[in-house]
């Protein structure tokens, strides 16, 4: 039953779903992400990325250091759309 453990809290992705993604061909964090939505939530993988790397390494026998991480993008933390509003335009 340990495979019911939630790995990505933002998107509620379980360990079993991640293992299934790896069996479907995922060999990188982005590969798992595209198949399960893990890392797509509010924290953008800050919590689960390391865990996913380790699961991929365990399932594929690769060295954890060789697993490609999630492709990092702006913003570093969430920002509101309103931040871009024209100040003088109001």
């Amino acid at each position, binding site marked *: 039953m340990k495979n019911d453990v939630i790995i990505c809290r933002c*998107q509620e992705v379980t360990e079993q779903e991640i293992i299934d993604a790896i069996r*479907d*061909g*995922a*060999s*990188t964090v*982005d*590969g798992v992400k*595209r*198949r399960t*939505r893990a890392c*797509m*939530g*509010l924290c*953008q993988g800050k919590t689960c990325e390391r865990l996913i790397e380790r699961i991929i390494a365990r399932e594929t026998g690769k060295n954890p250091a060789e697993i490609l991480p999630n492709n990092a*993008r*702006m*913003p570093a933390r*969430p*920002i*509101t*759309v*309103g*931040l*871009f*509003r*024209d100040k003088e335009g109001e």
Partner: protein
Amino acid sequence: MQDADVIIIGGGIMGCSIAWQLGKYGKRVLVLERKDVAAGSAGATDGVVGYHTKRPGPQMDLAVASIAMFRDLAGELGENIEFDFTAGGMQPAEDKMQYDLLASIAEEQRTSGVDIRMISGDEARALEPNLADDVYGALYCPTSGKVNPLKLTNAFAHAAKRGGAVIQTETEVTGFLIRDGAVKGVCTDRGEYYCDTVVNACGSWAGLTAKMAGLDLPVTPRKGQLAVTEPVDFFMRATIQCALYNIIKFRPEAIRDKRALKLGASLSIEQTENGGMIIGSTREFAGFEKENTFEAIDVMMKRAIRFFPALENVDIIRFFSGFRPYTPDGLPMLGETAALKGFYMAAGHEGDGIALSPITGKLIAELIAEGKPSYNIDVFSPNRFLG
């Protein structure tokens, strides 16, 4: 010894769709993918499956045939692809000039028999209550839909595998084996694979792949920048592009704002099934440079608030970008090249690849398996660029 009847290069939405369809004819298919399934543009876009964003003429006719296939697609593929057939597509206009331009484009689009109509600002707000109070009017297409492009690509890949296709990822094509003007195999960083039929389904990279076969085919990347927000409660159902989207695409000479034209920037927005809003987008020629730029983000976000003031307090969690495979005449390249026997193109759909993926798979498979597609695709022949 042949490794496959057909080798498809590219495990994106086109390659996987074609692989699935070829399996129905009992063809042994090998898909060679440089990275991973859906690692390119299908995982870096929105999911508009609409008529109203299509170029009037042959591309619209192709879209009509493709969107008809979406009706049964989830059932055939056996997976949820988050397809909403009647989400609707809308393009709000800020003033009469934009409205009239949209109306004239819509008139041409309607020659393909699609329901694209012009509605008032009040009618638009009745359909999408979060739309700004001062929107002048809108183009509306009630039968345009939306889909989850990642789920669709993965579903094509799973169905292809069930049909016998082998999808080999992390395999980069480095050249071709050619004899007497015909393709005989594919060279990769993992060795050579022999076959008489190769499909170039490399999207924005299709021009580079064709070059390895000695073919000069103008498919180049056009960058589209996007943002995704935190999931929010129901906000909108239609896929919405501001009027500039179609005007930049079909009447660029009418755009006076130089920055908007250079970036190809207009608002394109939709809410996905999980609640996140995808906000875009741009059409930029920047090679394979994929970083987000502040200039583009600034234009897109300002337009988002201009049309949807209630987005003000919604959090953006990620900016991203994808490459749209651009061709000089805005039409995809579909079919066999005359210069190299057995070498087929299935690329160059620019921003319409998601919507056109089902029909592309079907027609290319028919062409390869039966020698003739059920729908005339001569106008899309790659030979139009091969003099």
